[in-house]
């Protein structure tokens, strides 16, 4: 077997299988079918119109297929801006009109250009003018984009405006500002914003070409359920997590439970804040996922959950295979009307 063939086979083994859906059916059923192909769950807002749609996608990635579903429906959307903190966990389709953004798909990932922003500023640091292209990266089910505040980074960027000029930022592109506004825009907790600085250009004419790579840290994720009883243990790829103590207390907001978990590593220990995503589901939670405000002391982590009764279980997202991914994207003739 040649080396090239071996590499191709290994790569194919790591890529998830392509998706083919060619049928007419109830929108909710087709969404469920897509979600099941990736072992995930997609929530539908109750106001999304229940109707039949016809879809034809062949050998597509996850977001390509999801976009085809939403496009066919016309009244379901997941790309709405959401700048709340903490960012909402879980994946939900909202009852909003589908909006066609310039999109680039690579495997199950999607990048889209959300918009262009032009800046002109006069500050105590100097004067300046520049533009930004805000590129949103969507991570698929099972792969988590980590540390989204400073992740991803641009690599090998090409940016040509409608008049053929190279508008990549250079040493003369000075960002002189006291306040950062409109730099990044957010969606759910598995998206990242690549905010590309460029020389000023005519926003209404758009860009002839924008291509490059988004370099980011990602991890495979899997949900692990722990029963809330002292001594209960769950095996994970990096070792095990065990419940050591459960303490009940109460304050003006009602009852709460503090759980202490102990991590026993298998092989080289992974720092707990990289190993576990503390956006968790638990028995009795008010939301699909909640941030559990972890307190980490070495191999111990204490989390707090609020529920009307003692929760029977907690489900944490465990990360493995943390790696750097360079995600290519390419857009041609991007003009917003």
């Amino acid at each position, binding site marked *: 077997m040649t080396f090239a063939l071996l590499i191709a086979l290994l790569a194919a083994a790591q890529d998830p299988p392509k998706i083919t859906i060619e049928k007419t059916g109830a929108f909710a059923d087709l969404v469920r079918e897509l979600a099941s192909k990736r072992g995930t769950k997609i929530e539908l807002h109750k106001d999304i119109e229940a109707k039949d749609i016809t879809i034809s996608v062949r050998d597509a990635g996850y977001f390509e297929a999801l976009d085809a579903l939403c496009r066919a429906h016309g009244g379901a959307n997941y790309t709405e801006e959401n700048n709340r903190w903490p960012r909402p966990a879980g994946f939900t389709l909202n009852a909003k009109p589908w909006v066609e953004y310039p999109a680039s798909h690579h495997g199950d990932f999607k990048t889209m250009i959300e918009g262009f*922003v032009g800046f002109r500023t006069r500050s105590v640091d100097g004067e300046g003018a520049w533009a930004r292209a805000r590129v949103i990266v969507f991570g698929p089910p099972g792969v988590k984009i980590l540390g989204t505040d400073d992740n991803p980074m641009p690599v090998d960027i090409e940016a040509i405006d409608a008049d053929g000029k190279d508008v990549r930022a250079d040493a003369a592109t000075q960002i002189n500002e006291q*306040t950062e506004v409109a730099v990044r825009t957010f969606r759910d907790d598995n998206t990242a914003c690549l905010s590309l600085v460029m020389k000023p250009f005519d926003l209404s004419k758009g860009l002839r070409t924008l291509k490059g790579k988004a370099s980011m840290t990602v991890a495979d994720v899997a949900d692990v359920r722990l029963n809330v009883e002292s001594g209960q243990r769950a095996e994970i790829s990096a070792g095990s997590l065990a419940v050591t103590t459960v303490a009940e207390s109460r304050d003006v907001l009602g009852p709460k439970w503090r759980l202490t978990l102990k991590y026993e590593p298998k092989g080289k220990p992974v720092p707990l804040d990289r190993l576990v995503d503390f956006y968790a589901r638990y028995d009795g939670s008010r939301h699909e996922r909640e941030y559990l405000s972890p307190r980490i002391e070495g191999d111990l982590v204490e989390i707090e959950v609020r529920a009307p009764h003692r929760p029977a279980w907690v489900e944490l997202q465990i990360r493995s295979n943390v790696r750097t991914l360079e995600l290519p994207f390419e857009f041609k003739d991007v003009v*917003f009307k």
Partner: protein
Amino acid sequence: MTALLILALLQDDVAGWVDKLANDDIATREEATRRLASMDPAAIETLEKIKTDDLEQRGRLDEVLAILRARRKLAGVFGPTKRATISARGRKLGDVLAELGRALDEKLEGDGFAADATIDLELKESTLWESLDALAAAAKAHYEYEKDRVVLRPGRRPSFPVLYAEQFRVSPVELKRLDYIGPGKRESAGVIVLEARYQRNMKPGQEVFHNAVVVKSVVDASGDSAAADGVEWGGITLLKGRPFAAQKTIFVNPEAPGPLRIEGTTDILFVLDEKEITVPLDGEARETKEGDITFIVQDLTSSPAGISLTLASKENVRDEDAANRMVGHALTLFDAAGKGHAGRWHRGSIGRVGMLFTFPPGIEKPQKLVFRWVTKFHRVEIPFTFEGIQIP
């Protein structure tokens, strides 16, 4: 006493500036306001007696008086303002920096100037900020007021209207225009950053910036409000911040006919008095009363990960400054051996829900909780008006 007679009793130059408050030219009115506001506050009683039918002059006189009263209050709390007097013609820049630094009790350095660079500079009883701004203008330079020194570097930077008030300097520091385009959407926004800056060596010096710059109005050239809400495509707004400065960002309508006029006030809290509060933990009643507040420790739990507790109050705390009264959000837990262990604050402020603190594991028999609580703030309220503001 008539206005004319009162003016006659003032020095001729002051009378001239009072007259110029009614000038047709904005720049002249602004300069007159600035000059009068920088006078000795001893002039307050005399200026208060001036009567005029000119609305613009009356408004500006009231503004000057408000500033002079604020300055008098500042001097009373923070002590006399450091001032500098220098007369330099063709003197070596290095020597002038050294002399000015001594006068202002600041470490003043030049970076990027020729060794034989010279400067012309005239200062007369100028405050720190007046002196630094004049120095930068004279040297065709800009300065950075850093944590432990002031550095002067070549190259002028854009200037903005400034209000000097004793140890403080209030000014817009950024004007920005944003144009956004997306699918079916094209919008613009204007952004203004206002800043209140203070000198480092004030006593008291601990600041708490809860909402340190308050904007009351932004008015365009037609007299209409130009204030705007933030924009939904704006993402998160983050201020860079500078040492010894409080900043505030406001959004304005970028299409409002300029120039704009901004009115507001600073609202900076400085700690005047604080005391140590102790909450016992070895009995049943884990509480201590201080004034109107009963501090209570709730939810004290110990686990292999350490100790966590909530410091709350029995009362609903209505004091809007309560969130800033715990000095440094610092809490110390003392064990039976008398050893103190620093806590880590996670969230919350004093009130019925309280503040969550955690401590490392291994603390034997916690006995008491100790923290410092501000009992008196001084509130620095300096009214300001800036005119001639143009969004790029």
